[in-house]
């Protein structure tokens, strides 16, 4: 029986594949790499492409749009991106987030007032506790 290694392909939102493989081929930014068990530790940036997982006769492929590949001698981890990322795109979304914050802050009139914020919250919490106690009594 051929030597195998464990491979996990995950994206932020879900687990895509987890199992054993005899060989894995992945598209790195600098070109495709083939990884067999006992590979030396490596970490690399993935570009869009397919990851092929070979085990026995089977070869499965999974599409990734980018991400990070980590190789340990017997474990391979693929952190796949779900979002399409590019520097400009990230920049644009960051600007959008800033704009939303500025919009929210635009009608701000009050000065920094922790005391009042805390007082108001304490009151709300006290009310909630009171309601709970009343319910327990019933």
């Amino acid at each position, binding site marked *: 029986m051929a030597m195998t290694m464990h491979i996990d392909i995950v994206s932020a939102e879900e687990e895509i594949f987890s199992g054993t493989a005899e060989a894995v081929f992945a598209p790195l930014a600098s070109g495709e790499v083939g990884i067999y068990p006992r590979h030396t530790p*490596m970490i*690399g*940036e993935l570009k869009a492409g397919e990851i092929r997982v070979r085990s026995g006769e089977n070869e499965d492929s999974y599409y990734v749009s980018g991400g990070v590949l*980590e190789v340990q001698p017997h474990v391979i981890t693929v952190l796949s991106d*779900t979002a399409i990322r590019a520097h400009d795109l990230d920049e644009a979304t*960051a600007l959008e987030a800033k704009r939303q*914050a500025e919009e*929210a802050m635009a009608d701000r009139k009050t000065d920094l007032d922790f005391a009042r914020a*805390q007082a108001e919250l304490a009151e*709300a919490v006290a009310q909630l506790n009171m309601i709970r106690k009343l319910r327990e009594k019933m």
Partner: protein
Amino acid sequence: MAVGKEIKTQIKSLQNTRKITSAMEMVAASKMRKAQERMQTARPYAEKVRNVVGHLHFAHPEYKHAFLDKRDEVKRVGYIVITTDRGLCGGLNTNLLKMAVSDMREWHEKGVEVDICTIGSKGQAFLKRFGLNIISSVSHLGDQPEINQLIGVVKVMLDAFANGSLDRLYIVYNQFVNTMTQTPTSLQILPLVGAEEDEELSHHWDYIYEPEAKQVIDALMPRFIESQVYQGVVENNACEQSARMVAMKAASDNAGDMIDDLNLKYNKARQAAITQELSEIVGGAAALD
């Protein structure tokens, strides 16, 4: 029977309220299941990315990322505050904000400035009222938050940390313990706090970097932070649904109790009215004899 009619209308309106709250309870219950599933499915990535970053901690690259840079002097801190978009979920947001505000106040008293990133409109509305400085904000992520909705807000904070305008970054969210219990939690995410010692990895070794250490680490770090924030968001979402379910169940029960009380009152009033009418008739008949 004027009193009786009034009570009847009151009962009707309470019944309508109960219909709404029990519908909301059921909706929240089904959303909660989905939100919990989402929390589970997001976990593998969070674990793996934490592992990789932990390994990297023990590797000895020639390049040290800004996120690992521990600064002794703290002049300005950042908070990512995750709240819900909608209310009617009991004390969930209130408890969270209470903790966040008292933390921020402590910083403020030490002369440290606080910058805030809000995720969710409840926190945004509350914090801006008290003059806190919100520098990035996103809301209305919906029931299925996606990581690309978060990249922007998180990037603003990460950039601020990288260029030195923030010295610490915390994330505040509700941790999902179980359906009945949600705990407000505050975690330091930057600078990265060291991973636990791993015997196997503590000897000197290093990765092969493809193409270069800087590029790979620069790609990995934001993903790590984003995944932590995403985890916070989905967890807070599960908390929101379960808190709402519990709150709406309590509201439906209360409406039921009130309806029972009013029914009793109505019947008593009706009985009193009938008794009175009867005694009037009897009295009238007696007067004729």
